[in-house]
């Protein structure tokens, strides 16, 4: 009897708990949207020395959220897992210097582009090899694994007459470590990162790839058309606002 009633109370509590969780779950998810940002992609998205998400994209999204009436939480993620995280509902969108590419558009939807970057080749200041010769004389070219610069190099290597070796790194930072000691002859990257890399270092841009400039866009799940519209509208508002110029100056873009 005593045992039975205890189970009754326990069961009731459990049922109440489950009910609370099922009811509160989606409702609470609707209020706060989670933006996934790359651990380390300054000045677009990064985590500052205090551990807070920061950067151009973080500021932009905060402004958009305020205008469009939603709250946002910025969740730092490792780059390799960022699209899987989006498509498994860990995060709701990605605003972290992500290039709009055909490959990615197969699995996610992108907003309108808000920033343009070209693909460049960075080398030691003393490097004598020209941009064209880099790809035909058996040189080693570093690149961050999984980026669209990586895809670009892979495609380029397939062209006739090409002779170079792709060395893939976990980050562009790591490839840069290998430049001065000569393990690689050049490193391919976005023009936005190249500018960061050249600050205070003996590097130069050897040349720019002859491909259309990439646009950075925010990525959302295929099914989230409503969110896509909200973000697009927010982006358009932001880019028309004086704050946009201010933001670009703050993060030394352009």
């Amino acid at each position, binding site marked *: 009897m005593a045992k039975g009633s205890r189970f009754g109370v326990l069961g009731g509590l459990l049922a109440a708990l489950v009910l609370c969780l*099922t009811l509160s779950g989606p409702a609470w998810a609707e209020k706060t949207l989670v933006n996934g940002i790359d651990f380390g992609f300054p000045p677009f998205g990064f985590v500052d020395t205090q551990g807070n998400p920061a950067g151009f994209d973080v500021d932009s999204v905060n402004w958009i959220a305020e205008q469009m009436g939603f709250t946002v939480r910025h969740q730092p993620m490792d780059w390799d897992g960022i699209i899987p995280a989006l498509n498994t509902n860990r995060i709701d969108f990605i605003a972290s210097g992500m290039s709009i590419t055909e490959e990615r558009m197969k699995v996610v939807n992108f907003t309108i582009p808000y920033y343009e970057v070209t693909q460049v080749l960075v080398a030691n200041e003393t490097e004598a090899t020209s941009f064209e010769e880099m790809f035909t004389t058996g040189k080693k070219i570093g690149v961050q694994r999984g980026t669209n610069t990586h895809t670009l190099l892979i495609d380029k290597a397939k062209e006739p007459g090409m002779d170079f070796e792709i060395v893939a790194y976990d980050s562009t930072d790591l490839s840069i470590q290998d430049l001065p000691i000569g393990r690689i002859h050049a490193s391919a990257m976005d023009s936005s990162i190249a500018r960061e890399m050249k600050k205070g270092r003996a590097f130069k841009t050897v040349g720019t790839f002859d491909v259309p400039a990439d646009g950075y866009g925010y990525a959302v799940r295929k099914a989230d058309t409503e969110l896509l519209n909200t973000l697009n509208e927010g982006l358009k508002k932001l880019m028309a606002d004086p704050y946009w110029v201010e933001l670009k100056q703050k993060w030394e873009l352009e």
Partner: protein
Amino acid sequence: MDFAKIMPVLWESLPFILGGITWTLTLVFGAMLLGLCLGIPLAVGQVYGSKTVRRLAGIYVWLFRGVPILVQLYLFYFGILAYLSRFPLLSGLGLDSAFLAALVVLSLTSAAYQSQIFRGSIQSLPEGQLKAARALGMTDGQAIRSIVLPQALRLSIPGWSNEYSILLKDSALAFAIGVMEIMARTRTVAALTHEPLPFALVAGVLFYILTHLGVRALKTLERKVRIPGYARQGSMS
């Protein structure tokens, strides 16, 4: 390397980096404890179980020792947990937590390794002890609980402290799914300066200190629980 640029960033970010120690240690101690709870029955099952139990335990150990932790983390976090959190009943339970995924993966893997440590210890005990226990009228369960395990667990401590240092280093892989432990935090700060090396050094020093302190603590434990006159202590380490 530009130390004038790195030092202020390192200094400013030190509290943030050190904050990762809590996450790392929670992961490691959590996984050791959960691995212990699962590892003991696995070991007992492998030594004393029926043919089916032995085979099942064997498959478990084979599976978790055979798949790299990084692969397991990806499969579990982006695969199994993501699938489970689709059900409305489960979606509120915090299943989207990367920390939970890392803890589960490390625990399950550690259980597989720990079970092998315990199995070795159990098998190193003289078989006559079980016979003697039966002669005293004990059931097999009683004998395992009160005679085999107290000795086997003591013998397992050196192997167990080895497992601690392995787990500590494996926990650094949790950065891949976004757990902000030591590794993730140092990588994050390194990206601010575009100088990965000094911060890799910081991570290395932190992991070294934690390994050293943990192994020393377990050595002390080993001494404390030693049975005086029990001769086989040294032979396992």
